[in-house]
């Protein structure tokens, strides 16, 4: 097995991974950085983010306000020391991106423009048309090309972390086009592998969002934190699940039911604001969890439009006018026309909430360090926790930058004065990893279909772990996922080639998703309260006495995960009421 010696290995080359690589290259040009990704960096799902990245810039805005919006938006499950760090770093990171060439939209005087976004009291979302994630990703990727210390390993699938002496010291990864497994010896590993929205059938997420990074850490003994908190983006296309950015509502788009009523006012987000004049933090600019939950209630009441892809509400942007739409929402217009045959200039577009983001993930502290020394994580795969029980739109793109950099700095600190690696031990671990794959190739006596198991997983997640949950459904999901994990051991590869075998990769990805789904369902069943994106029909109130804590799921192999809890860090904002009505103070 080829052994690659490096100083820091980064798994995942999206926004967080690239930012970490650049930070390492700039801070310590002598350090060797191995940037490992299962796709070419520009394919990373960061490219699909549309709306923008939040950072305080306007004179009437403040770190305190961004802090309050984030902590309240997260229903007080965010760790407040982390949020304080984040809001301070945010503008610096966005300015750094600008200096690297990011084409932020501008005001007439040449300064960077900001737009309103959901759950934010002030306008602080920097944006690049409605392709902010795309431009951020490409700016980072192109910037990374100038650093010789970064060596990329494109289309390498990470298999297992190598741990010895209580430290993470590398990983194994398969070169996808040859099937060769290689051992990466590293003094530190940063995981930036993204979320796992593909556990669900209706999602904005691309094919690659299968929780590989989360599973990597989880199986190495690092807890997955707050996995039960899954964000539904309120406005996705009903057939493909494609994202229609929150900026549609930021620019003034409104949500109506089949009677033409702007129904959000019936769910504590009123009074109705004038058409085309959205008011921050209320009505259509309420937080995503509340807006998605309102949809669910409208479905129960029979107020939604029935389409062949299910129940929908309508998003009306006609009053914005063609000029504004072409300038600020061109991608949205193109998506709706191409995939749904609806022109938002002339018609209201049917939409429904779709799974979009995972607030939970690899447990880290504010320094992006996990419980395993030498292992760090950043981006959607990590849970610091910045986003708590519900993420505000446009905080995530900034999160990639702030914690991508932070993880790099923490890795540099960790590397100082490390004892020499036990090469024999690491090699033994690597061979175990290889054996796992060999076993999969040589298995002939299985009777399970990978796509069949995947469909069953998605069905139970959709049915039982949706916007609203209850105990019976969650128990069913817990049992179903546990059974699927057991049956997974009898999946046989249909494709036995070594060369770019996507059957193999999909089987491995399914394994990661099942592990993540198990952590998710177990955590959800145990949380007997409603908070943010986790809503229980049988426990409708928030319970700060028992649950102002993070769920921590610990891997136990074939067994269900062990669950315990970690207190939320509260600094200056005691749990309050989330008030998104127009008359709030």
């Amino acid at each position, binding site marked *: 097995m080829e052994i690659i010696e490096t100083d820091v290995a980064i798994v995942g080359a999206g926004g967080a991974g690239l930012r970490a690589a650049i930070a390492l290259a700039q801070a310590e040009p002598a350090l060797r950085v191995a940037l490992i990704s299962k796709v070419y960096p520009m394919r990373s799902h960061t490219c699909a983010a549309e709306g923008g990245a939040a950072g305080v810039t306007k004179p009437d805005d403040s770190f305190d306000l961004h802090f309050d919006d984030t902590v309240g938006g997260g229903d007080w499950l965010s760790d407040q020391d982390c949020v304080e760090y984040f809001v301070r770093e945010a503008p610096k990171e966005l300015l750094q991106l600008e200096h690297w060439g990011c084409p932020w939209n501008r005001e007439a005087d040449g300064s960077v423009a900001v737009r309103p976004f959901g759950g934010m009291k002030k306008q602080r979302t920097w944006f690049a048309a409605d392709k902010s994630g795309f431009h951020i990703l490409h700016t980072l990727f192109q910037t990374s090309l100038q650093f010789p210390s970064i060596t990329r390993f494109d289309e390498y699938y990470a298999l297992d972390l190598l741990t010895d002496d209580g430290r993470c010291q590398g990983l194994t990864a398969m070169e996808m*086009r*040859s*099937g060769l497994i290689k051992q990466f010896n590293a003094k530190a590993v940063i995981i930036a592998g993204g979320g796992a929205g593909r556990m669900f059938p209706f999602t904005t997420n691309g094919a690659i969002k299968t929780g590989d990074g989360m599973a990597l850490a989880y199986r190495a003994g690092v807890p997955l934190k707050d996995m039960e908190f899954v964000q539904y983006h309120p406005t996705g296309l009903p057939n493909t699940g494609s994202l229609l950015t929150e900026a549609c509502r930021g620019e003034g788009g409104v949500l109506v039911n089949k009677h033409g009523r702007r129904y959000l006012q019936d769910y504590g987000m009123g009074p109705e604001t004038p058409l085309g004049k959205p008011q921050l933090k209320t009505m259509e600019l309420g937080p995503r969890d509340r807006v998605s939950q309102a949809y669910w209630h409208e479905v129960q009441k029979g107020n939604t439009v029935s389409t062949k892809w299910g129940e929908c509400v309508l998003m009306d942007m006609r009053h914005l006018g063609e000029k504004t739409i072409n300038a600020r929402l061109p991608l949205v217009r193109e998506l709706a026309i191409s995939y749904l045959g609806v022109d938002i200039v002339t018609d209201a577009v049917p939409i429904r909430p779709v799974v979009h983001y995972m607030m939970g993930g690899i447990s880290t502290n504010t320094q992006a360090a996990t419980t395993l020394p030498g292992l760090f994580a950043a981006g959607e795969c990590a849970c610091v926790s910045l986003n708590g029980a519900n993420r505000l739109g446009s905080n995530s793109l900034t999160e990639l930058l702030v914690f991508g950099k932070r993880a790099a700095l923490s890795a540099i600190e960790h590397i100082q004065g490390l004892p020499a690696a036990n090469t024999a031990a690491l090699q033994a671990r690597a061979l175990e990893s290889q054996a796992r794959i060999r076993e999969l190739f040589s298995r002939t006596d299985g009777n399970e279909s990978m796509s069949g198991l995947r469909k069953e997983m998605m069905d139970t997640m959709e049915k039982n772990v949706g916007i609203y949950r209850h105990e019976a459904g969650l128990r069913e999901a817990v049992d179903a996922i546990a059974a699927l994990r057991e049956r997974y051991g009898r999946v046989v590869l249909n494709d036995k*080639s*070594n*060369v770019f075998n996507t059957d193999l990769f999909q089987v491995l990805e399914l394994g990661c998703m099942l592990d993540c789904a198990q952590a998710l369902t177990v955590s959800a069943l145990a949380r007997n309260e409603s908070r943010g994106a986790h809503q229980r029909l049988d426990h409708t109130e928030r319970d700060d006495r028992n649950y102002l804590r993070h769920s921590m799921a610990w891997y136990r192999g074939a067994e269900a995960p062990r669950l315990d809890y970690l207190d939320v860090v509260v600094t200056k904002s005691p749990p309050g009421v989330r008030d998104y009505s127009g008359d709030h103070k």
Partner: protein
Amino acid sequence: MSRRPYVREVSKTRWYFKHPRYLRYMSREITCIFIGAFALLLLCALGRLADGQASYESFLAALQGPWSIFGLLVVLIFAVHNATSWFNVTPKAMPVQIGEEFLPGRYVVVAHYAVWIVVSLAVLFFAGAF
């Protein structure tokens, strides 16, 4: 090593038959042969002119034969095709930005045609056509 990337051959002589847009491109490029031939003809005309009036006039008489007229018409068609196909793509090479907008390409194209017509008329005028 299991990899064996397969390189697909591209015919150096028949690649343009693969798609109509390549044939269109070749039709534009081929015009250069006819325009080049016409340029040679003009050189001959200059040579004949230097030889004296009789030589030049017999040259002009030869040009009025039916095959010659036919040939010159063919050259004219290709020259027009050359001019129009190039005019139509010049906006790509010279974007005109006014404020935040760009001048629509057709203005640039129309300007080219306008200049062409004016210059042609001027040449004809000085040649005594009217």
